[in-house]
Every structure is written in structure tokens, then in C-alpha cells.
């Protein structure tokens, strides 16, 4: 409230929970959904092979959600990513299969082309002030049309083996010599990495709490920190163990993890990330603070194009064929992941971790319902209701607070 002058740094557990219910709620929701499907599918969900599938099926949604989150935080939307996925996938197929170029040339070219596609749309949004909904709706049609043109309505494949590994390969067991139980654990490296990461997360988390205390800034209550770490750590080690009994880390999982870390850093610590949040929060005030808001918007779309191109190549490699119908409807899954993850449609609010968890919630539900044998009809219905419920939860919390 206005004029409030209480100077306490230690907040009560109840009030902390009330203020941060969104973040914990999301995590709890993901865990509940996982447990629910684990039970209802009689343990199929967390079988090593299914976890691997889950990662492979959802990596591109997560990767695009990273870019989409920045777009949404900046106060825009991008409907064209599904079409760019197909378009770049098609171009990569032509270069790799028809022209026989090596993937080390094709991958950077495709990323640049994705950036160009994003730039073409970003120009109209940022500098000509055309609503992004319209520009990217046009882009969605244009790039889909271009895909049909370049592929001449036919799928192209198969891809060279080395390119396929991008999507279907696994990180080899670098620590096989030290494996204490080769009969159970087939990829010891994966298990070790997960355990090290969990330990590192706890260590740095504790360190951050200590510096926060020194600087008098707010800390979450210890109970929450411990509980959160315990849940995340347990789930991570469990999944890491399951993967280590199969083939270890899929390559895309590594790519995805690195990108998540990078974008978390960008949104939290970089000037460009900070400015995007300010732009989405109040464009006029940000502009009057001497920030080139047009260029920032433009970059957000270029970035989205690059990530969509990466996703396009991953999908093409996974399906081992570039088809004109690839990526249809992906934009909606990606956008839904961001909104489930707590991004605000009016801009300025949203977290990378939220978008990633949102994407996994959608992914686990898709996967779980498929295992249950529910058709696309029910899947769509349930996803729609979950999206509405998540956003209603946000609005309800905001009005109440």
C-alpha cells in the first residue's frame, strides 16, 4: 500500500507464499501432473525410453519458448514460428540432401536465414508500428507458402547420418571406465553430471542466500528453499538415473539445457534483457529513458527467427525428412507454454523458468495422454482447459492481491 514504511526484511512464510504462489504453484503443478500420469500409465511415463522420447518430442517447443518469452515480455506475439520451422527445415533438406553440402556449413547458414526471416517481420513491427499479431499472421502464411514452393509439395529425405545425430544422437559415456555397476547403469557419465549439477545448484543457492542477507535484500524462507531444492534435486536425480540406465543424455537435451541457462542469464543479468522487460512494462517511459525501443523489438524478432530455425532443423533431423506440413500449430503450443508459465499478455512479466516448466507441463500431458491412448481430440481439449485455468489463476491472484 501507498505510504507503507515497514522496514522488515524477513517476511512471514504465509505472506511469502501468497506473494510467490505463482512460481511454486507451477512447480507443484508439474510434479502433480507427472505423478498423476506415472500412476495412471502404470509407470510407463518414467521409463527410460519414454523420458528420452519426452525430451526429443518437446525440446523444440522449449527452445522456441525461450525466444517467444522475450517476444511476449516485449509486449508482442509471434504466430509465424511454426511456418519458419517448416521453411528452414525444407531449406536445410535442400542444402544437405539435394546439394550435398556438409552440415557444418548448412547449420550456420540456416540459423542466419532464420534470423533474416525474423528480421523481415521485426522490421514491420518495430519500425513501421504494425501490430505483431498481423505481421506474424502474414508471416505464418508467407513462410508456409514458401515452404510448399521450395519443397515443391514433396517431402525431402533422408538426411545424412551426421546431421541426424543432431537430433537423435546421445552424449557418449565419457566415464564408462569408472562405472561401478555396468549391469544397471549403461551411461555413468549422465548420472555423474546430474548429481554434480544438483550439488552445484544447492551450493550456489546457499551462497546467494548469504550474499542476499549481507545486502539486506529479501530471501525466500529457508523452508521453501529446502523444499524446492529437495523436489527439484530428487526429480533431477531420478530422471538422470533413468536416462543413465538407457543411452544417457540425448544431444538435444544438452543443447536445450545450455540455451535455457543462456536465456536465464540474459533475462536476469544482461542489460538487453532488463531493457526488454522495461519496454514491455511501459514502452513510452522506456523510450523517454533514452532506450532504443525499436531496435530492441527488432532484435527480439531476429532472435525468435534464429531459435525457430534451430527448432526446424532439430525436427527435420528427428523425422529424417523435411515435409511441407512440419510445424503446423507449433506456434500455439509455444505461446501456450509461455502463458502457462506466467507470462503476461500485456507484456513486461514472464520468466524463462516459467516458460520452460510450462512447456514441460504441456509435453508431459501430451505424452501421458498418448500413452493412455486418448486421441488428439481429448488432448486438445485438456490442453485448452489447462491454459485457461493457468491464466485464470494469474488473474485471480492479481485481483486478490
Amino acid at each position: 500500500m501507498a505510504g507503507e514504511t515497514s522496514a522488515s526484511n524477513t517476511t512471514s512464510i504465509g505472506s511469502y507464499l501468497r506473494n510467490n504462489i505463482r512460481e511454486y504453484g507451477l512447480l507443484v503443478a508439474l510434479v502433480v501432473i507427472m505423478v498423476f500420469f506415472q500412476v495412471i500409465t502404470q509407470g510407463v511415463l518414467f521409463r527410460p525410453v519414454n523420458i528420452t522420447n519426452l525430451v526429443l518430442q518437446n525440446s523444440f517447443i522449449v527452445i522456441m519458448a525461450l525466444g517467444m518469452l522475450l517476444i511476449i515480455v516485449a509486449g508482442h506475439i509471434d504466430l509465424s514460428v511454426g511456418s519458419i520451422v517448416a521453411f528452414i527445415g525444407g531449406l536445410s533438406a535442400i542444402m544437405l540432401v539435394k546439394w550435398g553440402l556438409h552440415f557444418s556449413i548448412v547449420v550456420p547458414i540456416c540459423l542466419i536465414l532464420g534470423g533474416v526471416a525474423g528480421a523481415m517481420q521485426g522490421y514491420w513491427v518495430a519500425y513501421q508500428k504494425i501490430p505483431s499479431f498481423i505481421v506474424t499472421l502474414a508471416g505464418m502464411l508467407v513462410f508456409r507458402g514458401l515452404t510448399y514452393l521450395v519443397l515443391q509439395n514433396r517431402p525431402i529425405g533422408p538426411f545424412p547420418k551426421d546431421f541426424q545425430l543432431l537430433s537423435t544422437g546421445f552424449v557418449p559415456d565419457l566415464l564408462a571406465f569408472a562405472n561401478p555397476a555396468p549391469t544397471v547403469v549403461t551411461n555413468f557419465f549422465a548420472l555423474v553430471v546430474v548429481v554434480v549439477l544438483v550439488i552445484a545448484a544447492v551450493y550456489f543457492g546457499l551462497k546467494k542466500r548469504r550474499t542476499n542477507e549481507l545486502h539486506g535484500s529479501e530471501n525466500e524462507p529457508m523452508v521453501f528453499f529446502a523444499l524446492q531444492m529437495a523436489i527439484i534435486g530428487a526429480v533431477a536425480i531420478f530422471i538422470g538415473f533413468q536416462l543413465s540406465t538407457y543411452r544417457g543424455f540425448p544431444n538435444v537435451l544438452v543443447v536445450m539445457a545450455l540455451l535455457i541457462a543462456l536465456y536465464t542469464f540474459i533475462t536476469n543479468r544482461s542489460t538487453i534483457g532488463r531493457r526488454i522487460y522495461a519496454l514491455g512494462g511501459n514502452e513510452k517511459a522506456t523510450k523517454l529513458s533514452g532506450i532504443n525501443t525499436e531496435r530492441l523489438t527488432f532484435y527480439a524478432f531476429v532472435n525468435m527467427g534464429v531459435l525457430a530455425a534451430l527448432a526446424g532443423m532439430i525436427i527435420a533431423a528427428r523425422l529424417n525428412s523435411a515435409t511441407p506440413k512440419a510445424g503446423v500449430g507449433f506456434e500455439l503450443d509455444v505461446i501456450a507454454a509461455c502463458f502457462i508459465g506466467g507470462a503476461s499478455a500485456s507484456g513486461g512479466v514472464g520468466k524463462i523458468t516459467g516458460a520452460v516448466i510450462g512447456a514441460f507441463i504441456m509435453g508431459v500431458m501430451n505424452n501421458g495422454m498418448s500413452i493412455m491412448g486418448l486421441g488428439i481430440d481429448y488432448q486438445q481439449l485438456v490442453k485448452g482447459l489447462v491454459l485457461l485455468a493457468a491464466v485464470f489463476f494469474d488473474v485471480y491472484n492479481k485481483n486478490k492481491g
Partner: protein
Amino acid sequence: MPAGPALTLRPPWNVTDMENIILEMRNITKTFPGVKALDNVNFKVREGEIHALVGENGAGKSTLMKVLSGVYPAGTYDGEIHYDSEVRAFSTISDSEDLGIIIIHQELALVPLLSIAENIFLGNEIAAKGVIDWRETFSRTRELLAKVGLKEAPSTLITDIGVGKQQLVEIAKAFSKKVRLLILDEPTASLNETDSDALLQLLMEFRNQGLTSIIISHKLNEIKKVADKITILRDGGTVETLDCHKEDISEDRIIKGMVGRDMEDRYPPREPKIGDVLLEVKNWNVFHQQHRDRQFLHDVNFNVRAGEVVGIAGLMGAGRTETAMSIFGRSWGHKITGDVSMHGKPVDVSTIPKAIDAGLAYVTEDRKHLGLVLINNIMHNTSLANLSAVASNGVIDTRREAQVATDYRSRLRIRSHSIYQEAVNLSGGNQQKVVLSKWLFTNPEILILDEPTRGIDVGAKFEIYSIINQLAAEGKGILMISSEMPELLGTCDRIYVMNEGRIVAELPKEEASQESIMRAIMRSGEKN
């Protein structure tokens, strides 16, 4: 819905009429959080007269009219409204409209892309079971337009007619609602002289037919022309009511009533140490942002010296904010020409980053929309305009950022539970201090403050004045735009007066008074 006869005719106005009071507002008191906007106001209007309501910006005129019309519903203020010899408690605008009290606001409430006829009957359509009777609508519109002397087809779109004619459409709309008490808020503010004269003439004709009107205006010459009575408000209280038929009221007489207040020590003392000219603006010409062929600022020249606090006085719409924003990186206007120099050397201020580099900072009058990212916290708002100073290679040093925010928080005494509190949850005065922090962190040489104390309480005002004094003592130049004349007189070393896009006077502290400022504005207004 049939609306009956358009105008209820009343006996013509008569000077010697007995007390035939249509409206009496008794002891009206209205408080907003921290501010007493109206304090025991008494206001009496006789049937069939034109009653002018005058006062400085913020004197309470608009608030009083909002109380009358039900914008502030009964119960949110103290006092009684007697209308037609009965006590009334309006809880919505339509309650007062049903009794014939119609307000025409300064910002016209017309839908630009609808026709005249559609606008007049908007929300009050002549329809049966939801189907509009266009023939009746158009013929009624024609009658109403004839009454206000507007020769336009009912199907003409609002956007295709000028502001003067739009004003007449508003009046026609008032007549469609059986108006008995017409309230006009600054009706001629955006009109040229011919249109203004025509409008005033029309009001006098209506008076002769028995219509009562209340007119709020800054243009004292116009008020003198039409008003039968003048009520003066000041600081939320009634000063006096003058009867124009009993004595000859001069403009100076009105001005004296408007400004005559004593200046207590609401302003911290300061010993000015004035140095060389820091900022100099020459031949500044700017065209309107939207109406691109209309020149808005004409040959504006001014300067600010180091350690000096320079004021710009003027009425709303005089071009003060536009001057500041057009200089600050062309953030307002179009076809901008003129020279800006700092320390006698020309500087490039064509974009906001360049203006900031040149040493300018502009603290906006609209802190919620243009000053703060409300959903961000104090720290993020403080560093926003100079983020690179707490970052290296594009990576923010959060510790340094927190340090900066903490420093400004204690230096400007921002009251919050921490630097992580969101700006939206701060009081107006503390929000203003956050905006100031943001700009002080860019280390400007010239600080342009646009209405720096608008909407904040007296205590916070004093703190803002103290900050201004401290900055001047550090050798910065302060350009202060304010609609509160006492504030300018209390803090400034020199005051420019603006009116209608021109600087019309430059008054050193010794010559500046509320009377001299008002006189400069009024005289220039009559010349144009």
C-alpha cells in the same frame, strides 16, 4: 426513446428578478487521499444567468463541477446540493442529466468516426425494440443543428468538421437531453477568435431564451463579455461572487481575487549562486505532433544558467511541456527547427540518447505513463536510463546496481520497505522521487522538471523543493515548468511566461508576481 420538446422555455432573464435560485451548493467539501480539493465551497446560481467560475489550475473548479454532475457520487463528499429547490443526491452522471444538468468537457466526448446524428443520440437512440428510427433521428438532428446554428448534414462524420463545429454538436447534444443547466468547461480553449465569438454569442441568445449556464474559463476578457456573475475559487474554497451588473469588474479585479494569497514559508530558503549560461535555446519552432500543418511553438528563445532555477509559467496548452519534450530528443512534435547549445557550444539533441549525452534530463509531468515502469521495482527504475553505468560488457553488476538504488533511496528519502518494492505501490511523492533518482543517476547538467509536485502532498512538496535547491547549489541548471504560480515564485530565480506557443514575458524574481504573470498571459492572449 422519444425525448419530448428540445428546450423547455422559461421566462426571460431579468436583472431585477427576485431570488429565483436554480442551483445552490452548500458547504461542499471533497477530500482525496492527502489533499483537500474542496473546502466548504458555497456556490449559488440564479435561473437564466450566465455564471462564470474562475480560478487558477487546481483551484477546484472541475472538482466542483464533478461533484455537481454526479461524477463523484453523493456520499463521497460533504455538503448539500439544492437544485430546483430540492436537495439532490446524484449517484451517477445520468441522475443529474435526467434533471437537465449537462456538462460539456474541455476534451469533447464525441466519437470521431460516427456521424453528427449518431453522436447526438449516442446512448439515447430514437429506437423501437432496439431498431433505430433513422428518419426521426435525422429530422430531430436537423432541428437541433438549426437551433445551434450549425449548417452541416446530420450524416457528416465528426472527424470531418472543425473543433468549433464539434463544440456546437456537443451543445446540440445537450439540447437533445432537455438541458436546463448547461456547464461548459473551457469552451473556447481550442477555438479561434471567430469561432469563440460565435459560441459566446450563441450562449447569450440561449440566456435570453431562459437557459442557465455555468462557464469555466481562463479567458477573462470573454468572461467579462458574457457573464452576469463571477464566482472565484482559490485553493478549494470560494473567495467571492461578483455581480457584473452592480459594479464594473476589471480583469485586474478578477486576477486579484484568483491569486491573492499569502506565501507562507512553504519554500525552503536558498542563496542563489548563479554562474555562466549552461543551456541556450534559440529560434525554436515546432509543428504539432498530430496536426502536422499547425505550427505549435513560435520562435521560442530562452536560457538557463548554472546554479539557476528558471521557471516557465503559463496556462494549460500554452506549449510548456511541448517545448521541453521537443528539446529532449524530439520526443514531441514535428518539423523541429532551432538551435540548442550547452556551455555556448551547439549540441545535437535530435534523439533522446543524444540529449542525455548532452547533459539534459527531462522529468515528465506524467510519471505514471511516461516516467516509471510501474510493475518494476525501485532499483530497476532507478538504473533504467543509465544501465550501462552499472554494467560491463552488457552484464549487469547487480550488487553495484543495488548500491546505487540504495544510495538514491536514502539521499532522496524515498519511503519504501526496500529497493525491491514495485513502483506501483509507492505514494505519489515517493514515485516522483524515484523518477528524480533515475534522472539524477544520468548525472545531468540541466534538469527539466515538468510539474514536479503535481498530485503530491505538502510535505513531499517541501522535500522536492529542497532537492531542487540542493541541485542548484551543486551548479546544475534547473528548468521548472509549473502551473502553480506560487510554487514558481517561491523557487525560481527567473520566470519565463508562455502563452499560445510563444514566450510572452521574461520576469526576473523581483518583478515576478502572480499579477504580473497573469497580466502577461492575458495581454498576449488579447493581442493574438
